[in-house]
């Protein structure tokens, strides 16, 4: 199935940063929504969908990574943070609501790169959600020698940790030290003396830069998922480019389109 804009139904939505959850007072609101859509059938880990706000004063679709794909039952899960008007609208959606989405977009993580390798998956903050489907797919394929997960959180609001623990051990880092290693995902690597041949990661830019340096120093291949403000989501507008080391085959300049050529890039290929 190619890229399509489709009507879809909200199956369920709940707030992960609910009452009694530590960290809610910091203002981070994180939501967990399941959507019913055929697009789930060939969704790949690391791909994203665009959701169109219904308030037409917010014109552009919002790119949101796929957290989980139930391919058999045709359902996609997204876990997102309320960051502005669009995501605020999404947070009010309820089971049964009809919404429009465009998907599945982007390249996704290269599962074949994990074959016979020791893989560490790293997610930081709102970069954690795509790690869940990646972890599931790597487990299912069973070709990696070993898969470990490191999740970096701001505070004790450890969203998706339990979901990921169903598929493997999860090392946690928190900035405030309220759980796991105090610090960031790279501090976990040092503290636990973890070794990786392949790193697959999504998170804030400083984290991705640190992973890029780590991969250079340790000879590990790092696949990082990038983010940028997007308009079309399909590679036409050239809004969401990242600088590349070599001339890009499509653009013929040192710019690749994050929406189409990415969002996942080999760290050594991009200038971040």
């Amino acid at each position, binding site marked *: 199935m190619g890229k399509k*804009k489709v009507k879809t139904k909200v199956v369920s939505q709940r707030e992960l940063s609910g009452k009694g959850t530590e960290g809610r007072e910091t203002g981070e609101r994180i939501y967990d929504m399941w959507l019913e859509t055929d697009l789930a059938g060939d969704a790949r880990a690391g791909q994203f969908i665009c959701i*169109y706000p219904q308030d037409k004063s917010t014109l*552009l679709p919002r790119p949101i990574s796929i957290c989980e794909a139930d391919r058999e039952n045709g359902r996609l899960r997204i876990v997102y943070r309320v960051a502005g008007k669009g995501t605020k609208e999404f947070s009010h959606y309820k089971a049964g609501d009809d919404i429009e989405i465009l998907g599945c977009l982007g390249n996704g993580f290269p599962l074949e790169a994990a074959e016979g390798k020791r893989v560490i998956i790293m997610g930081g903050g709102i970069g954690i959600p795509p790690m869940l489907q990646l972890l599931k797919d790597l487990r299912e394929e069973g070709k990696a020698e070993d898969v470990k997960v490191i999740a970096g959180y701001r505070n004790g609001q450890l969203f998706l940790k339990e979901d990921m623990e169903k598929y493997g051990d999860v090392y946690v880092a928190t900035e405030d030290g309220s759980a796991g290693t105090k610090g960031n995902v790279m501090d976990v690597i040092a503290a636990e003396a973890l070794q990786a041949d392949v790193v697959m990661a999504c998170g804030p830019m400083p984290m991705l830069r640190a992973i890029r340096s780590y991969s250079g120093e340790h000879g590990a291949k790092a696949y990082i998922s990038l983010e940028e403000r997007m308009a*079309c989501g399909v590679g*036409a*507008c050239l809004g969401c480019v990242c600088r590349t080391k070599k001339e890009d085959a499509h653009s013929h300049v040192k*710019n690749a389109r994050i929406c189409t050529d990415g969002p996942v890039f080999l760290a050594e290929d991009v200038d971040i």
Partner: protein
Amino acid sequence: MNTKVKIAGVEFKNPVMTASGTFGSGMEYAEFVDLNKLGAVVTKGVANVPWEGNPAPRVAEVYGGMLNAIGLQNPGVDVLIERDIPFLQQYDTKIIVNVCGKTVEDYLEVVEKLGDTAADMLEINVSCPNVKEGAIAFGQKADCLYDITSEIKKKAKQPVIMKLSPNVTDIAEMAKAAEAAGADALSMINTITGMKIDIHKRKCVLANKTGGLSGPAIKPVAVRMVYQASRAVKIPVIGMGGISCAEDAIEFLMAGASAVAVGAMNFVNPYVTMEIAEGIEEYMRKYGIEEISGLKIDDL
């Protein structure tokens, strides 16, 4: 009923085109849109050599529209000729190549290279607000616009559309200057220069600081300018700026446009161009209008 329109001798099956820069070279949207159903595909602006464009962030949403400062990133005219024009030739639609440059010589080089290609028309971008040298300067002063238009007309084998900037005091004066220099048609409006500040980060959202405003927010400005320009000249005007549905397109045709182009709304609804072509037909059927030109209201 007949939806065909003729502009500078080129016949289009319907008056709906894509606005340059919002549709790539057609390839990216061919997954959604049957390009055979469009009057024309207008390609992303192309220069004599590849351009890197501006740093990111290049786009920002604003109320009812968006700002962009792509900076005319493009792979250069040679790639367009080898890759993009042959792709578009597979479809039964007209090909309009948008041309950009920093100097008059840049423009002329592109225009000459396109001379023997299947491009049906050339649209000359003298109105991009996001590149510092050349470009918009040519479109903001009537005498500069006159000069570049006449230079291009000397070399161009295809009919020439001059794409005008709304960032001027008197659009009619600009339209007349282009017409006097021999332009075969005009297109308008390009984006309106704007800015957005992130009050939490205390800096501009776009890396380029300023960008071009497009989307429904600019439609009334565009309709007004198409109205003023089309009534100041005899050459056809292709109208664009915030068209999001057939009703919007009809407004432009009533104001005096001979055809329309759809831009930012492709990002909101990838099927919008086809829907607009169908919607115009439906409107004509409903009101018994035989020709697209019959939509124009002379005594508006």
